[in-house]
C-alpha cells in the first residue's frame, strides 16, 4: 500500500470540452509521439503491421451515440486519460510505492524503476486509464507531460501537455483546478463542468464540459420566435418585382433614400 499526500499545493489537470471535441484523435497521437520519445520507456506497439495491432496509449478517444427523448440521435466524442484523482485508488493499491501523487502539483505518476508490472493499479482505476506496456512490462499512464510543463528547454508558451498544445479545436485546457480564479476553474464554473463518475469517490481533478443543447431547429411547441423574420413581401414573381422597385427606392441613393 502507498499513501496519498494529505493535500497538494496545486491541482494541475485538464478541462475537456465535449461540446467542441470533434473526435479527431490529434491528442491521442501527439501524446503517443511525445511519450514514446520522452518520459520512461517508449510506448510500444505489438504486431503493428499484422492481424491484431495493439499498442500502449495514454489517451484514447471513444465515441458514444446518445438518443434523446425527442429529436435525432447525437454523437459525442469522449477523450479519456488519467484524471489525476485526489483520492487516487491506483496509488493506494500500489504494493511497491511506484505509483505516487506529487505534493507540489497533484500529478499522479509511475516511477518505472520501482514498478513490478503487477497490474493492481489498472484494476483499481475505475476509468481504465492505465495501460501496461507489453514490451517493457511496466505500467504506463498520463504524466500530464510533467517533462514539458516545467521544461526550461521549451519556450514558456509550449509548457503545456502535448495534447493541449496540439488540439486543433481548442477543446482541451490545462491549468490549476485548485485555484478558483484560474482560467480552467472559471471555465468549469461557467460551463457546468463535471466530474467523471463522481459516485466512485475518487475526486478526479480533470473536468468535462458537457455538450450544449442541440437541435434547436427541431419542431417544439406552437410559438415560432423566428416566424417574423420571414414575413412575406410577395408570393409570386410579379408581386416581388413591385416590392423590389419600392425597396430600391428606399436604398441610399434611391428616389426616397438619402443622398448622394
Amino acid at each position, binding site marked *: 500500500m502507498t499513501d496519498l499526500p494529505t493535500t497538494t499545493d496545486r491541482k494541475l489537470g485538464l478541462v475537456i470540452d465535449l461540446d467542441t471535441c470533434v473526435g479527431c484523435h490529434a491528442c491521442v497521437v501527439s501524446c503517443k509521439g511525445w511519450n514514446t520519445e520522452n518520459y520512461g520507456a517508449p510506448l510500444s506497439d505489438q504486431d503493428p503491421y499484422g492481424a491484431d495491432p495493439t499498442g500502449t496509449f495514454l489517451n484514447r478517444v471513444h465515441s458514444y451515440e446518445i438518443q434523446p427523448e425527442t429529436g435525432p440521435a447525437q454523437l459525442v466524442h469522449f477523450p479519456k486519460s488519467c484524471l489525476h484523482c485526489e483520492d487516487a485508488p491506483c496509488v493506494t493499491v500500489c504494493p511497491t510505492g511506484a505509483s505516487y501523487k506529487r505534493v507540489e502539483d497533484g500529478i499522479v505518476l509511475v516511477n518505472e524503476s520501482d514498478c513490478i508490472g503487477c497490474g493492481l493499479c489498472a484494476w483499481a482505476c475505475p476509468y481504465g486509464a492505465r495501460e501496461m506496456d507489453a514490451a517493457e512490462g511496466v505500467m504506463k499512464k498520463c504524466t500530464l507531460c510533467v517533462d514539458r510543463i516545467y521544461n526550461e528547454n521549451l519556450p514558456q508558451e509550449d509548457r503545456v501537455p502535448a495534447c493541449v498544445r496540439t488540439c486543433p479545436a481548442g477543446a482541451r485546457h490545462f491549468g490549476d483546478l485548485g485555484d478558483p480564479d484560474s482560467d480552467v476553474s472559471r471555465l468549469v464554473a461557467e460551463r457546468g463542468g463535471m466530474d467523471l463518475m463522481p459516485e466512485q469517490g475518487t475526486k478526479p481533478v480533470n473536468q468535462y464540459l458537457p455538450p450544449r443543447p442541440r437541435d434547436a431547429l427541431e419542431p417544439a411547441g406552437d410559438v*415560432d420566435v423566428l416566424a417574423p423574420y420571414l414575413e412575406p413581401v410577395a*408570393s409570386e414573381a410579379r408581386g416581388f*418585382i413591385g416590392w423590389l422597385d419600392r425597396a430600391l427606392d428606399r436604398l441610399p441613393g434611391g428616389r426616397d433614400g438619402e443622398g448622394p
Partner: protein
Amino acid sequence: MTRYQPRLDTSPPVSDEVRQTTCYMCACRCGIDVHIKDGRVAYIEGNRDHPVNRGVLCAKGSAGIMQHNSPARLRAPLKRVGPRGSGEFEKITWDEALEIATGWLKPLRETDPAKLAFFTGRDQSQSFTGYWAQQFGTPNYAAHGGFCSVNMAAAGIYTMGGSFWEFGQPDWDLTKLFLIFGVAEDHDSNPIKMGIGKLKERGARVIGVNPVRSGYNAVADDWIGITPGTDGLFILSLVHELLRAGRIDLDYLARYTNAPILVNRDSKSPDYGLFLRDDDGKPLVIDRATGALAPFDRPGVQPDLAASHRQGDITHKPVMHLIASRYLQRRYSPEAVAGTCGIAPDKIRRLAAEIARTAFDEEIVLEREWTDFRGERHEVMRGRPVSFHAMRGISAHSNGFQTARALHLLQILLGSVEVPGGFRFKPPYPKPVQAHPTPHCKVTPERPLDGPHLGFPRGPEDLALDEAGNPARIDKAFSWENPLSAHGLMHMVISNAHAGEPYRIDTLFLYMANMAWNSSMNTGGVMEMLTDTDENGDYVIPRIIYSDAYSSEMVAYADLVLPDTTYLERHDCISLLDRPISEADAAADAIRWPVVAADRDVRGFQSVLCDLGARLGLPGFVTADGSAAYADYADYITNHERKPGIGPLAGWRMGKNGLTHGRGAPNPAQLNSYIANGGYFVKPIPPEAAYMKPWNTAYQDWAVKLGLFDAPQPYVFELYSEPLRRFQRAAEGHGARQPPDHLRGQIRAAFDPLPDWYRPLEEAQTDAAAYPLHALTQRPMAMYHSWGSQNAWLRQIHGHNPLYLPTKVWQAHGFAEGDWARVTSPHGEITVPVAHMAALNENTVWTWNAIGKRKGAWALSTEAPEATKGFLLNHLIHELLPERGDGLRWSNSDPVTGQAAWFDLKVAIEKAAPPAESRPGFGAIASPVGRGPAELTWKVGE
C-alpha cells in the same frame, strides 16, 4: 504505508535541433516543427507561427514519424519481372530506370506526343508537373481533382471567381452562423477544426447538413440529416423563402453581381438568353439615376435591379427578374421539397428565418474606408455574418456543379461573400473565369503543347476537340460529354485507354495515384483493364510507369517503378502559381526541404522529372547547349521563371535594390531564406484591402504589385452564367460548333444558366424499389486516402470499416452485432461486416473509405484486418452509367464538369452468412518491400 516521491528531471533536453518544414500527411499543408535527435526524426509538432495551423496539428500530422519510417517505403527503382499485377520486380539502378523511361518516351514525342498519358494524383506540384507535360507536348495531363472536387472548384470560379476550401474560407473571427454542407471528416483538417473551435468559444452557431452525423456534424448545434443528392433542392427552397420575405441584400446585388444586367428574353432572337452589350462588348444595365442604358461598370452608375428594357422588338430583363420568376415558383417551397430532401417544411423555414435574422439583424460594420471599381468611396465595410462551407457531399454527385452554384446563389443573395463575417477569398483568389486560361490541346511532334492543358471554357469554341470534332484528350475532358472539366477526368483515363476511345495510347505515366485500388471506380474492372492483353498477347495498355513513395496497390501494376522520397526527405514548393497556403488576410507560400537525408536509393519525383526532361531534350529543361537546365527540383524552384520576375516562390526574390517579395529576379539563396523563416512566406493584405476584394481598388492594386496578376481585374459575380448559356444555346442548334445529337438533351438540361436541381443521373435511371438505399463513404479525420493503413499508430485507431446502417434498416433486416450483409448495386456485389448507427439519415448507409487494402500491399500482413474484413464501396460503382441499349458509353460523371459521381450510388442490402473474409477477395500481391516488424519500441534518443 509510505510515500516516496522520487526526484524528477522536469527539464530534460527536448531535441538537438528543430527543423521547420511543411506537413504532407494530407492536403492542408500545415507547418511542422521536426525535432531531430542524433540526426533522426524524434518528434513532430505544429509550428506556432505558421499561417495555416498556428501550432496545432492533427493526428495524421503527429503520426508523420511513423509514415516517414514506414516499412512500406520503396527502396530502389524497380523493373517488373513477373506478370502485371503480381508484384514481382527486380531492383535496378537509377541510370537504368531513366534510360528505360527515355527509351519509351522519346519516340512518342517524335511521332505522336498524345500517346503519353501523364496523370498525377494528390500531387502538390501541379504547376510543375503540368509544365513538364506541356513541354513534352501531350494533351493528356491532369491531377486527381476530377475525382475529388472539380464540381466545387468549377462552380465557384464560374459563379464568383473562387470556391470553398483552398480558394476561400469563412471569416472565422466575425461569422455568427456557420453552415456546412456535405463536409466529410477529412477535408479540410486543422483549419476547419480551429475555426469551429473559435466559433464555439464565442457561442456562434454551427449547422451541419449531412446524411451522417459524425465529426464536424456531430459538434454542430443543429443537424440536418438530408437525403444524399438533394442538397441543391434544399438550398433553393431556402432561396425561395428568403426571396418571398424580401430578405436579400439589394444594394449588394445591384453593385457587385450581374443581377441588374439585362438579358435578351426573345426566344426567336439569335442572342436569346445572352446579355445586352454595348459596342465595346460591355454588358449593359439600366442606370437608376438616369433611367438610361449604361455599361455595368461605368463610374457613378447605379444599376437597376427592377427595370426592363425594350430595344427594337426585343425585351430585355435584368437577371433579378429571372431569379424571382424561377425561385418563387411553388416547386421550391418547403412543402414541395420536404419529401425529396427528407427534411420537414417547418425545419426548412426555421433555418431560413435564422439565416435571415443573422444576416440582416446582426449586420457587422467595420469602420474601414475603401473605394470600389466604379470609383465610389465607401465609409465602411458592411458584413452579413452568415458563412458557408461545403465539400464532397455536394461535389461527388452528378448534379454537384449546379448544387454548388445554388449554394453560391444563396450566399450572394445574402450579400455574404467577401464581406465581414461572411465567406472570404484567399489570394491568388478572387480570380474570375476571364483571368484563367482556356484549355489547350494542339499536338505537334517534337514541340510543346500550344498552351496549358487545363482551363475554363467560355463557350463551345474553347472545347478540346480535334478537327473532326472528336475529343482530343484521352479522358475526354473539355468534350461535349463534360465541357467544363477544368480538372480533367482521371477516373476515365484507364477505362478509355483500354477501350481505345477516343484513341489508343502507348505509355500511362502516373504519380501518387492509387488507380488499382481506392482511387478508381470499378476497382476489379480496372485491375483487369491494366492486365488485359490483345490478340498478340501484348498488354492493351502497352507501358505503365508509376512513381510513389510507398508499396501501394498500384505499384504491382507498373512496368517501371520510380521510388519517391518521404515528405521529410524532399524539396517542394507550395506555390502561388498553384494551390498556395494563403489565408484571407494574407498571401502565403511554403516549401519542403530535406530535414533528414534519404537512407534508400530513392529520389524526389520532381527531381526525376527534371532529369527525364533533360534526357528528352524538353524545352525549358535543357540549356542552349543541350545540357540539363536544372540539377534538381530545388534548382528549378529557385531559378525557374514562369514569366520575367515571377517564379514558383514569391518570397525573397532579387529586386533592383536588394531582396524583395512578389516580382523579382531569382535569388540563389531563396530557399535558405524560407528555411530561416520556418519554411513559409507570408505577405499580409492591408486592412483597407482585406474585404470586398473583387471590387476593391486597394486590393486589386496590391495584387498587381505582388504579381498575382498583371492588371486590375475587377468583376461582378455571375448569378446568371453566360458561358453556361452559350453551351445550352449550342445544344438548341445555334452556332458553328454543334454537340452530337445524343448529348443535346443532357446539355440543354444541365447547362441551365441559373442554378437548378435535377435528380442524380444514375439514380434517375435506377429502380428505386430495387436499390432503395444511398451508399456513401468518407475518410476519417485521422487518415488520408490510402496512406494511413501503413501507419502503425493510425491503423490502431482506424483498422476496421464496417458498413454503418441506420436504425430503420438495422431493425427491418433483424441485424445484430457481428453480422454481415450482402450489398448490391446495378453494377456489383460485396459482402461485408455491418454495424448500427442511429445518427444517420434513415435511407443511407456508409463506411470509411480506403481502410480496405489489397493483400500484400503496404507491407502489411496478409492477415491484416484491412485485407480480411476491410472493403471498398468502389466495387459497386462503375465509371460508366448502366447501359441504355444505345451502344454508347455514358460516363458516371457530372455532365457539366466530369466530376466522378461516386456519391450517386444506390444499393440494396440483405443479411448474409459471415464469409471467412469480405468479398470480393483478390489474391495477394507479392510485396516488393517485405513485411513490417513484429514489434515497435520507437525511441530515437536515450
